[in-house]
């Protein structure tokens, strides 16, 4: 019997336009630690900027940029919203045929609004189509988004491992720099 092979796609959702974050503040507990670094400039508020690389962000430090690039999802970007959005994208970009080919095997295995990371499972034959659909995804639940794919692998484990290692890197940089 031929085995059913699948691909797991690890993706991150980015929000190029900040609409709801006005400032980055340290939590109350560790007030002293983060304070100096993340002081909000007097310059134009964050929400008006395009914080992605290449955009004109002004005087954002490296850590700020990192934070904002991997920020938690704004309201409206939930698991369900993501689910519907990318199926829509499939339909819009690849038509009924595309959506139909893929429907049985595609599923959103994991999505965390707190970290905007998710894992999609697709059958091996059509993962490029799904990848493309993700690329074309513009908007989720009314919020402008951009999706990048971090890792594709044959097992869920590897995607999880990569997600973990990315998180560790972020945590280490933010807290290890102190």
């Amino acid at each position, binding site marked *: 019997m031929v085995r059913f092979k699948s691909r797991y796609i690890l993706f991150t959702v980015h929000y190029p336009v900040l609409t*709801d*974050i*006005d*400032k*980055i*503040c*340290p*939590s109350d*507990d*560790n007030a002293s630690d*983060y304070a100096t670094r*993340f002081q909000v400039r007097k310059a134009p508020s964050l929400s008006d900027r395009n914080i992605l690389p290449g955009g004109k962000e002004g005087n954002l430090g490296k850590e700020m940029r990192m*934070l*904002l690039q991997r*920020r*938690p*999802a*704004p*309201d409206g*970007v*939930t*698991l*369900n919203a993501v*689910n519907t959005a990318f199926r829509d994208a499939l339909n819009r970009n690849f038509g009924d045929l595309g959506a139909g080919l893929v429907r*049985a095997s595609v*599923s*959103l*295995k*994991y*999505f*965390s*609004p*707190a*970290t905007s*990371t998710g894992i999609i*499972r697709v059958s091996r034959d059509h993962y490029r189509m799904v990848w493309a659909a993700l690329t074309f995804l513009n908007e989720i639940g009314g919020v402008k988004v951009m999706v990048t794919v971090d890792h594709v692998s044959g097992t*869920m*484990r590897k995607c*999880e*491992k990569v*997600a*973990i290692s990315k*998180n*560790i890197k*972020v*945590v280490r940089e*933010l*807290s290890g720099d102190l």
Partner: protein
Amino acid sequence: MVPPTAGPSKSANQPLHGTKRPASDANNDRDEIKRVKMMNARTILSQPSESSLKQGQLDVGAFVSSRKYEIQQLSDSMRKSKAIQKQQTFQVVPRSLRRRAASHHIRFLPPRFREQAQQEYKDSGIQLTPKKRRRITRLHLRRDTALKLKYFARRRKAYHCDRKRSTYPVGINELATKVIMERKFKKRQKDKTWLPTHLWHAKRAHMINKWGYVIPSHPNEKCFRPTHRASQNGSGIVFDTSYYATMILQGQHDSLHMAVNIISRSKACGKTYLLGDRAFEGPIYNDSNNDCAIGEAVIYFEPTAELGDGLANKCRRVLIRVHPAAFDETWKTLRALVTETRERELDPDPDMELQDCRFAIGSIDIFGPKSLKVVGHNLRLNLEKDVTVHQAWSMATAAGDPKLIPLGAVFPLGFFDPRTISTPSRDRKVATWESRDVSKQSLICKSLNEMARHLGSRAPSPLFTTQGRSIRVEHAKIAHGRLKQRRAANSKAVDAKKSSQILLKKETLVFNDDVSIPAIMIRRANGAISLLLPWQWVAIFFKKLVLPAYTIYGGLQQYHQILCERMLPYFPDDFPGTPAGQVEEREKMTQREKEWKSRPRSKKIIYDALDLRNGEKKGEVGNPFACDWRYLLEADAIAGYYPPNESANQQDSSSTGSNAPWMITDMARALSERNKLRQNLMAAVFTVQIIMIGRGAPRPSARIYGIPVRDRSKWMQLKRNRKIVPGSSEYPVCPKRDYLIGFVTSGGFNLKEGKGSGIASLSWAKVEQNGGFNYRYCIVRDVGERIGRLALYKPL
């Protein structure tokens, strides 16, 4: 299996996505629970974004913690999904414990899996083989009663006191009578000797009959790589080497000194050896004048406090251990020496005697970087007072690697019965100890020296005497009873001491009737530890060392493989210059020839048709089934030098006589005195290590050629230009048979080096002819192969 389509749909306000409670449906309760369990295992929990995003503020602390949470959840998910996938017990059982019969017979699974398996087998409806019921007839009843009476009789204490023999026989000045291990199988041991661990090995390894012993040849499973891993990186590999012949020479110090002097050509008589601090390991020779070595031996003097003047007439003992293939010769030599010493006119030593302890002292060899650790875990020292030794021992065993112990170091130790000591947890993997830490290494070395000195200055090991060895092995049930007793006492002691800071270590509890089993631990030249024990205790210690912590066992082939990987010669295969080596070679030759003859013509290499394309006639060089030393040493060029009719023994013309190779054991001396020894060196042979340059692995009896001067540049080109491959036209042709200089005695692919390697023996005269000892390149060509491959040799 098709996965569930979408993640669970819950509104964003609920704190945690992913969990689900089982529906309380009475009918499909069990299936529902299973399904939910599966779903829970497969879903990953996630946090909503509210936690870090509040009213337009990105809380950095919360951001970091949400990342950490995700890490946690992903790891959990990985673990859960692995656990939920757990298949049948049968698949979880480690490979080496799997038995075919376990699929229908629970008894064949390891005890810890049986309960689980019971349930699974019931579920899957497998027809289990029921327990055998004994037929109850009158005859059977009578037999059973008789057995029970015997058993009860044995348990009586009086029975134990009456029994005379608690150790195994030793032959004094004569060969020992061999030991029969299991009385039940007496008939099978008529013409061979079983090792103490025979029954254990017979179930797990393929056994062969060699040198009068039945020795495991290789384990039943494939273990080329596991052996390499165990001896290089892992917990270790254990061998039962009780087939090594042990002899004890007893007499006055001076006469012993002289005897050892003779057989080892005075190499074993250094001060450290005489003191008993270190064991000598090296070649031993027979009594006659030629330099022919018999084999390798370990010589260990019984420790004494100091070497002084008063020592000359003191009674001392020397332990000599030889490979069984070399035993006959060694025994003859030593016996002759003993008779001579007893009866000589000048200062005779009438009390000198030679004890044959082949069946009284057995041994276990352990290789591996963590092997000392395994020893330390599973065997406990019985020391009444000496805390320093105890510390030094823990230090040594913490090190783990026998290579850290100084070469030839000997530790006379006394162990508890390992069955009465709390066994360590089965799953405990021996922790990695960074052996590259230099400071730690020196610490270990120092402490081991300390320990050696301490122990060495005490009384010599009881293993030397029959009395010392006669520690009776108790019945397993009694030993188990002791174990329980010890555990109870331990917990009591621990409770009692709970108030105070100091907690007793388990091993320091000594009971009155605890026995101390004498053992000698020697660090060998090949990087192993030899643990010498009384014969009756070998099986018990062996089982305790093999069981836990992933130590594996091996047979002769594995021993050979380990030595090959370390580029050390293996007796007797790699010693063609000794009588034992020649016998071995002959046996191998007959074996190979027989196998070759039995194969059909289309499925074997026809050696007569081998065309080397170097201008010579067709056919293999020499006898294709062996390392043809006669062919090599009979060549005309040498015969010219060699005066005719000069030979020591002419009994067996095929092996001895003028063309028998003899082994040079001291290269340096041979090199410097070569002019003096010219005549003798004609048939001399020396051992080298061979490393291939590039591809190919030498096999035993491969031919080795020196490189003719005019071809040297061609062969050297191979080194530079990888593209010159044996098929191409630029690949140089194999040298002619005049350039044959030796044969490979063991070889193969060396996992340690990452390329082919081997041990070979080269003819002294031939090497001299073909370029001298400084040009170390050579060509190695397997028997039946047309292609020669470039290699380097290095004398040992």
